[in-house]
């Protein structure tokens, strides 16, 4: 059961990482990187590292995504 969850999560992570690289809209790419971090945090939890999982969920998918969006909004205005 655990193995199936891990395989599904890694597939989602790979798909989202590729999306982040090749998608034309930057907003979609930023959200895709956030999803990669979220899945990584669930993965850390499954691998018995809850301390790392909490950091990854709060900083990787929360704060860095919002900072990317702030910067994106700024450079879009500058164009």
């Amino acid at each position, binding site marked *: 059961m655990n193995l199936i969850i891990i395989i599904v999560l890694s597939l989602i992570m790979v798909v989202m990482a590729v999306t982040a690289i090749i998608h034309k809209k930057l907003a979609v790419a930023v959200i895709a990187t956030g999803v990669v971090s979220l899945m990584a945090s669930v993965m850390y939890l499954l691998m018995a590292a*809850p*301390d790392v*999982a*909490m*950091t990854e969920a*709060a*900083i990787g998918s*929360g*704060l860095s995504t*919002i*900072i990317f969006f*702030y*910067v994106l*909004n*700024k450079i879009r*205005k*500058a164009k």
Partner: protein
Amino acid sequence: MIRNFFIIAIVAGLAAIFVTLFWNFGDSTTLTPLATHYADKGAAEVGAPNLVTSIVVTYRGFDTLGEVTILFLVASIVSFFLKREKLQKDIELKRETSEIILTASKLLVPIVMVLGVYVFINGHLTPGGGFQGGAIIATAFVLLLMANPDFKINHRIISIVESVSGISFVLVGVFGILLAGGFLDNKVLPLGTFGKIFSAGAIPLIYSFVGLKVGSELSNILSNFQGIQKEEM
């Protein structure tokens, strides 16, 4: 053509390195001597049920001080480069905040803040600690800033909280030299009963200071990024 050849050569070289790493990888079945020491004597020496915390705060406390310093440097560099000129006119925001985010922020911001404080106070008992708690507090500020774009975080309060907790963190470490085994030793305070909230010596104190410091630094970075949104280019 030559450029493509170089790229392929570099990718092939990296692939060769990683394939050998992957084939030689095996799960270690025994602990290293250092890990054995931590696992056997960590609970008795430090008195914290969460072994990760006892390593991060006590055995490797100096590294934690370094990480907090790096975060402090990042926060100060961000606020140095994103400094707002007071003379600039604010431009109007185009969209109203949605009702859902407004209501949710009123309900959730206090709860998320309390969760953050819970995480860093209970750092020696449950998973989590100063960095995690501070990051959770900063996510509460994200919700607050998304709901009220005009909200301004009071920089004076943030800088006071940040510097007082930073100084106290180092002072607790120095007290460790004077009263206990060395810098950041947690036996400054009595170890107490194993598994209670006031136990594990100075760990709850140190983690509270780290949590307040990390939370105020990350909130400061966020409010700096939010501040430049309304600037005219």
